[in-house]
């Protein structure tokens, strides 16, 4: 009796839970209402089956519970009943499958007016490429990838020249314009997943996969990676912004093309010296950094990282949060570097300065720090040299007090507050693995140790970029 009642509560409770639950699909923001419809059909057919089977069982358990003198029926088979149930089940299955396959047919056939967008996954960030005015994406190959060619563009393919490249930032899409998404991966499996769009597809290295959808609502959407891709999987977020035509066109125009990349001016260190005067006031004549003025050491930092940070300041991703007082001081300074040439020149000048390890100011348990650093090492490398391959700056031999402060800023989302600043956001996730100030000090103490040993101790000039060492000639499969 009790058993029957509890089972009844389980069956009915499941139904009640369904109606009381605040948890359901997000509001749809694409054309895939049909997917929701297929879910709806499946949900009802399955739900009814569950309720009927459940209630029948509860009834049977109650009605035919053990009683003195009761004898069970002896009926090995009932052909008619078995046939009826088989047919009813088959009808239910067809009822779910037919609409499902019809919608799948839509899903795999891209409409003719769809525009192509390429999405590239890598551990652990998303990049995007749009065809330029020729409407055609240029050829790419893994073997062309380098620090100066992160997309692996084929330099000989003329179609690639006007391709719009979006490294790290947000992807903008035009409202009501069907897009065919081409997916690629540099390293492992990823999956481009925006819950509001319903569509989803793996990015597989070595091949190009596709899906299509039409964004139907303007807004900002979060991109998640839906295929396990290593220890940073949960931090692999991105942002899609669905725009009206005007904003969309403005955004496209503002993004660099492959020819802009290729034509990026080489930095002139001599010219950069003049520009550096502004920086030197805080960062020091030799770029050694000044603790008293909260300005970190610059020398030895990789060019791509300084370029990205100046860009972040200029675009308001950094230095705009009210609690980031030192960042706010930096923002107007970055603005003085008004064009790409000025930026490149200053960077070239900083790179010409001697690189002495910064003075260690923070102490901690180096052994514990080494253990904690394992989580950092994947991106920032075991020796703390950083890698442009993972968009991770050099840590070893840099200002330790600055590192400690940035970790705190990341943890509090003061740095990384902007949803389009995907890399800083990534650090907001990773930094949370350091529980408490002691853990931060320990890991920074270990990074200091890395700065003292190995190649940073004697490395007075320049840095090495992870990808810079990869040249076309020694890449696999190069001909």
């Amino acid at each position, binding site marked *: 009796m009790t058993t029957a009642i509890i089972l009844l509560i389980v069956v009915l409770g499941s139904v009640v839970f369904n109606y009381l639950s605040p948890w359901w699909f997000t509001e749809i923001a694409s054309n895939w209402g049909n997917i929701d419809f297929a879910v709806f059909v499946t949900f009802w057919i399955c739900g009814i089956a569950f309720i009927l089977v*459940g209630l029948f069982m509860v009834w049977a358990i109650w009605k035919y519970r053990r009683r003195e003198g009761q004898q069970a029926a002896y009926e090995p088979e009932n052909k008619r009943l078995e046939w009826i149930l088989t047919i009813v089940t088959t009808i239910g299955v067809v009822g779910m499958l037919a609409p499902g396959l019809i919608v799948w047919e839509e899903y795999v056939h891209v409409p003719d007016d769809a525009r192509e967008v390429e999405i590239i996954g890598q551990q652990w960030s998303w990049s995007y490429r749009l065809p330029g005015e020729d409407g055609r994406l240029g050829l790419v190959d893994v073997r062309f990838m380098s620090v100066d060619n992160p997309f692996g563009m084929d330099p000989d393919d003329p179609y690639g020249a006007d391709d719009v490249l979006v490294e790290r930032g947000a992807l903008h899409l035009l409202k009501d314009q069907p897009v065919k998404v081409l997916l690629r991966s540099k390293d492992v499996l990823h999956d481009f997943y925006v819950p509001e769009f319903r569509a989803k597809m793996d990015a597989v290295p070595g091949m190009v996969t596709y899906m299509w959808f039409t964004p139907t609502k303007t807004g900002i959407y979060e991109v998640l990676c839906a295929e396990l891709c290593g220890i940073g999987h949960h931090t692999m977020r991105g942002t899609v912004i669905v725009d009206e035509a005007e904003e969309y066109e403005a955004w496209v125009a503002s993004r660099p093309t492959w020819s802009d990349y290729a034509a990026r001016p080489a930095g002139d260190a001599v010219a950069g010296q003049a520009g550096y005067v502004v920086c030197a006031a805080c960062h020091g004549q030799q770029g050694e950094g000044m603790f008293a003025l909260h300005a970190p050491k610059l020398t030895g930092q990789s060019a791509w990282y300084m370029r990205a940070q100046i860009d972040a300041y200029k675009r308001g991703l950094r230095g705009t949060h009210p609690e980031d007082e030192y960042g706010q001081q930096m923002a107007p300074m970055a603005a003085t570097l008004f064009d790409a040439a000025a930026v490149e020149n200053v960077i070239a000048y900083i790179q010409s300065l001697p690189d002495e390890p910064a003075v260690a100011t923070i102490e901690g348990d180096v052994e514990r720090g080494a253990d904690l650093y394992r989580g950092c090492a994947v991106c920032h490398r075991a020796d703390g040299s950083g890698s442009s391959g993972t968009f991770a700056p050099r840590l070893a031999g840099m200002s330790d007090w600055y590192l400690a402060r940035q970790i705190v800023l990341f943890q509090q989302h003061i740095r990384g507050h902007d949803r389009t600043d995907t890399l800083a956001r990534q650090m907001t996730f990773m930094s949370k693995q350091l529980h408490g100030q002691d853990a931060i000090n320990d890991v920074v103490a270990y990074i200091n140790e890395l700065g003292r040993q190995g190649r940073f101790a004697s490395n007075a000039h320049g840095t090495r970029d992870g990808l810079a060492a990869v040249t076309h000639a020694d890449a696999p499969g190069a001909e």
Partner: protein
Amino acid sequence: MAVEAQIPYQEAMELHDPHSWITKYWFSQDHKVIAIQYGITAIGVGLVALVLSGMMRLQLGFPDQFDFIDPEAYYQFITMHGMIMVIYLLTALLLGGFGNLLVPLMCGARDMVFPYVNMISYHVYFLSVIILLASYFVPGGPTGAGWTLYPPQAILTGTPGVDWGILLMLGSLAVFIVAFTMGGLNYVTTILQARTRGMTLMRMPLSVWGIFMATVLGLLAFPALFVSAIMMILDKTIGTSFFMPAVVSIGDSLDYSGGSPLLFQHLFWFFGHPEVYIVALPAFGIVSDLISTHARKNIFGYRMMVWAIVAIGVLSFVVWAHHMYVSGMHPWFGFFFATTTLIIAVPTAIKVYNWTLTLWRANIHLTVPMLFAIAFVITFVMGGITGLFLGNVIVDVPLSDTYFVVAHFHMVMGVSPILVIFGAIYHWYPKMTGKMLNDTLGHIHFWVTFLGTYIIYYPMHYLGFVGVPRRYFANGEMAIIDESVIMLNQTITIAALIVGVFQIVFIWNLIYSYFKGRDAGPNPWKATSLEWQTPETPPRHGNWAEKLPTVYRWAYDYSVPGMKDDFIPQTEPRTAEETAAGRTE
């Protein structure tokens, strides 16, 4: 049919009987001892996996609170938990454990056809467990690639255990497959060759049918995993490119070229989907026998049940790519695999109907094994219908890789077979030990386990509807998540910890009842099948007396009209009334 031994019985037994402690309990060739060895090892390693799941739930419910859980450790928990539960617990326990225990006893054989190979099978399995657990003691720890071990990620930087862990995992799987093959050949051959007089195929208990079909699936499916393991070991160690295309990993261009990650996925799931049924079919069979025995009624539609097992087994080989709808394989595969997958729902549904129809007009004894069997049906229906969501290709698209998937497969191939295993242990423990398990402890264990797992997994489907992705170390700030989702995750964690801790009650019951349990007698459940008709309880080595039993009827003669008892053992010859009534089975 079985051929009686040519040498006299006593002489044969003396020759065969173990002569020392070692040959009796460690290097034993007695299928029952081997079954217990498999059982204890599987449950032991399963408890490790249970603890790992508890630690995962701690992180998911209360993120950033525990210093010992970082992403590396978390992904190692996930991987080891999944692989242990699927392979080293469920497969080993259902086939190595129950297969060994039940096949010879239910078929009326003295032992497996190749007892020596059977003994080796267990020890090779034990070795595979040692290799697997050894990965916790090598530099870098076990692999954190997820139980699917998808390349390229499984062998590249950025995944835990990429140096040693992955090699030990693949090596352990290869060794396990060797063990399984030796055991599996035994089960199949014994069922086909060593059934006693009168035990026709269509008189076999459904447990034997389930184990038989599952073993056939295993023998055909495991080789696909075996070759994938070997190929991935080669990719990792000598730099072949079976599964590895040209990649730039963490900024480094690697020397791989031309391999296909999708090839691995096809091979893996060509094994992996039948694997679901390798676990499910023995559970289907066993639960049919539990329901029939404790409902005191013949299983409804026996022949349909047998054919459903066979049909599911065959179909399970043509549905594998429903795990890959969003993998980037050719989209037309979606039409084919969705259709085959939903077709498999028909024989599966028939099994569910027949279990429930067995309860109809029965005389239900709500014993502990019966409670577990009923809980299995409810859980399995839930897990089965959510499988229809994921099998119906387009419905899978928004739900794939979310917590809906996690909830679905835990219901259907985690909790469901585990409930059957518990029921089966409560059911057959008396035959194995001569003692009954304690009823009160059994009830406590049952209700906490059944209701607890339902509270864990039923709401979890709704996390999937929201879109929460699986295999995230931490959700952190996520646009689709609000306070209520966080609260739900905490609730699930608390339920999971309670269920986990209460398994101690079960373990305690196993130990306590062995010493203090009520004497069971030879046939406490008044069951019909052969294992309950052995001359001794527990059965001795060789199972039967000098003469093997003869079978006269099917295993489901419960509540036959006009009979004094509500069960007739299979060894009972037909009466004149029965023959007169024209019943052929």
